[in-house]
């Protein structure tokens, strides 16, 4: 039986792995990829130590740091289930089953969908949830970026460099992104910012040809935007389905205390999958470090 299994290899899982390795705790990391959502981040300008670094580059540095230690890293493996039974855990993946005394859930979150007509039909036919990946395909075309948070503005700023016209559509009255990003997008002449607007439908033929939006206040007037790309950046939902019987909040996030303990003794969670205040790479790293130290303390107490 292992002392610990870390599920997920994003910033939280990597940081937990580094701390566990230094404590010489016998553990495995099981993850689909190393880097997690950092891989999908465009430009990163708020990670301490780097004034500017791309997401892929930072993920590469995370991997290199992790590789400095000898550990059991199971990459390309997906965990389906974490079961709890009399103080131990069984972790089931697409490759096998593992037993462990403690587990750290660092499974992060995935893109939230709009849930409107046309969205499913045109997925990958103009609708994308990864501006970093698919953005360049819309070179010279008109696109709509949905969401006025940091990821939405990142996507819009990426697209104004290569697309035709860029519409930035936000449901609320204000853009919630960092002030520096908002100031930058306001300077872009090819970007039209439409606030107080909800997306009602995505339409097209074989590919997206347009979206219908509606004013959420006052007139409730509708408008058609002729776009061939719809980049959806409206937040995330936690990947917390793999574990039952643990306390979660209304958003489905695993509830943790300030030492990242969950409601189940021996089960810890870190990063975007939890109710931690704000989802940021640097915060996930800190939470992962806390998780490893909390595991160490737990193992010492339950020898």
């Amino acid at each position, binding site marked *: 039986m292992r002392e610990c299994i870390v599920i997920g290899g994003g910033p939280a899982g990597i940081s937990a792995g580094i701390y566990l390795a230094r404590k010489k705790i016998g553990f495995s990391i099981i993850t689909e990829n190393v*880097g997690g959502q950092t891989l999908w981040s*465009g430009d990163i300008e708020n990670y301490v130590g780097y004034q500017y670094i791309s997401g892929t580059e930072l993920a590469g540095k995370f991997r290199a740091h992790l590789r400095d230690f000898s550990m059991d890293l199971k990459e390309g493996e997906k965990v389906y289930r974490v079961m709890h039974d009399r103080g131990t855990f069984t972790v089931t993946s697409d490759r096998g089953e593992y037993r462990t005394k403690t587990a750290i859930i660092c499974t992060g979150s995935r893109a939230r969908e709009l849930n409107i007509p046309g969205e499913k039909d045109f997925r990958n036919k103009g609708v994308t949830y990864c501006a970093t990946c698919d953005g*360049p395909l819309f070179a010279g075309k008109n696109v709509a970026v949905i969401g006025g948070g940091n990821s939405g503005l990142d996507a819009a700023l990426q697209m104004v460099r290569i697309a035709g016209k860029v519409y930035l559509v936000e449901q609320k009255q204000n853009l919630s992104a960092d002030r520096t990003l908002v100031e930058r997008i306001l300077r872009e002449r090819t970007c039209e910012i439409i606030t107080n607007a909800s997306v009602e439908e995505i339409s097209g033929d074989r590919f997206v040809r347009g979206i219908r939006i509606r004013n959420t206040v006052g007139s409730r007037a509708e408008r058609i935007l002729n776009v061939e790309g719809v980049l959806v950046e409206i937040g995330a939902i936690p990947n917390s389905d793999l574990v039952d019987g643990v306390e979660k909040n209304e958003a489905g996030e695993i509830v943790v205390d300030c030492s990242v303990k969950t409601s189940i003794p021996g089960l810890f969670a870190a990063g975007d999958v939890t109710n931690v205040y704000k989802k940021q790479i640097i915060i996930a790293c800190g939470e992962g470090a806390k998780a490893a130290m909390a595991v160490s303390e737990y193992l010492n107490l339950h020898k």
Partner: protein
Amino acid sequence: MEKKVKVYATATCPYCRMLKDFLDSNKIAYEDFNVGTDPARREEMIARSGQMGVPVTEIDGKIIIGFDREAIKQELGI
């Protein structure tokens, strides 16, 4: 007989990077098209795969959408 492999990718896409790393580590030779900068290859990819998501891999005429490790392994017989 070596199979003819084409990869349609963008420079920024992590799945494209993972796919190419996977092919490299298995010593599979492939043609690498950047559909972000090459409009003709972009149209070719969209026409052949019927969609706009990257990466797309073509192995001896068979199209595989996304980084589908198992499908690629099976098609390459590795």
